[in-house]
């Protein structure tokens, strides 16, 4: 299966590219300066989406619009407005642009998988922006599952807390000692399943590759 991966320059995304043997379409991560709350990067994202949508279609598209490295857990009242935009609004907009391009590049009867970072509910304190973005992506996936189902395109998500664990987790401990898992094994395995024929009847779902934590 030929896989196109729309991803950022995050090191863990490179690991995913290798694990899936995917071709890469880079997502924009460097933007013009400006007042962050005005989204000075909106036009650039728009242009990127238009260009990225205008390419050959493939049967399998994976989207990993991860930030380069997570900022670390901070209670929301300690997150300033610029940091809020950087951790919440910009990633949300990048996911929106990326998933729009992904379904344009997906052939009829193909599959799209969004790979999203999301802390387990027990562990989400300090990760409010990331939790909000992850839930938004889940809704985007379900919206696209509805709009693309008519042409046989399946759209699903895999969630992982792999980079969002900071020290000991809240009790009870995760069921699997492999928590929080790895990109190359737990995450890539879930993606392969959702892209493959064994998931032919699966769309609009979220598969948590969190080693049972959720």
């Amino acid at each position, binding site marked *: 299966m030929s896989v196109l991966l729309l991803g950022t320059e995050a090191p863990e995304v490179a690991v995913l590219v290798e694990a899936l043997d995917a071709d890469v379409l880079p997502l924009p991560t460097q933007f013009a300066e400006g007042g962050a709350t005005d989204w000075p990067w909106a036009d650039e994202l728009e242009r990127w989406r238009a260009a990225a949508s205008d390419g050959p279609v493939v049967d399998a598209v994976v989207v990993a619009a991860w930030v380069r490295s997570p900022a670390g857990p901070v209670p929301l009242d300690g997150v300033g407005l610029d940091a809020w935009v950087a951790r919440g609004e910009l990633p949300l907009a990048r996911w929106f642009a990326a998933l729009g391009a992904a379904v344009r590049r997906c052939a009829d009867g193909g599959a799209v998988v969004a790979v999203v970072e999301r802390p387990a509910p027990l562990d989400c304190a300090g990760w409010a922006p990331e939790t909000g973005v992850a839930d938004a992506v889940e809704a*985007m996936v379900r919206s696209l599952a509805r709009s693309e189902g008519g042409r046989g395109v399946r759209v699903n998500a895999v969630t992982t807390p792999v980079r969002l664990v900071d020290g000991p987790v809240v009790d009870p401990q995760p069921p699997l000692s492999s928590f929080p898992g790895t990109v190359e094994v737990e995450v890539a395995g879930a993606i392969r399943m959702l892209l493959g024929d064994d998931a032919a009847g699966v769309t609009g779902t979220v598969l948590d590759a969190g080693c049972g934590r959720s």
Partner: protein
Amino acid sequence: MTDARVVVVTGASGGVGRGIALACGEAGWTVWIAARRADAGRAVAAEVDARGGAGRFVPCEVGDADSVAGAMADVVGVSGRLDGVVHNATSGLSPVPGHLADLPIADLRDHVAVSVRGTYLLATQALPHLEATTGALVVLTSEAGFEGKAKLPAYAAVKAAQRGLVRALAREWGPRGVRVNALAPLASTPAMVTAMERDPSMAGRVMGHLPLGRLGDAETDIGPVTRFLLGDDSRYVTGVTIMADGGSCPIS
């Protein structure tokens, strides 16, 4: 909290927000109508008075940090306390249909500014005051945030993002005595009427999977549930999304 609560309701100059404000007014609470439209906001404040509460209007642009800070300062400056905040306002683009791959990023920005940044700004500005009263934050989300919407993907995305924020904030603020919950209403509102006019098939889709067979009323169906989430009867409830949707959403 005492019975003389002071609450702020955003986007309360009409629709669901107005219904929530009136329901809180019936309890005798002081209700601040936080909205952009002064005339409509003051009219709802007068309706709150007529219900037995104390209606007040404060101008507020929920996506603007200075505006939210100013509104909170005005409320606490006049009323002396803050027991609850209800973030109900949504983008005026909420009923505008479009496909996720084509929707302008600038439109998404408007959705995010009102719903998501608005939640962030209101939450962070209100926290010290809510902590002082062991108060509550209630965020109005939607079944769209669970199910997704083929034609309203930006609306669905920001409504889902709000649920994520609520889940995280409940864990962060619980030890500080502040409860955070979400409410997903389905009610007949001007926005819904507009959406149904733009998409004539919508009425059939909505009513077709509505076990209770009718759209909710903002004041008598949604308002009391919001009042519950603001009041002592829900003092052991945090981090949840309550569906007040006539059984419409099968996911929850």
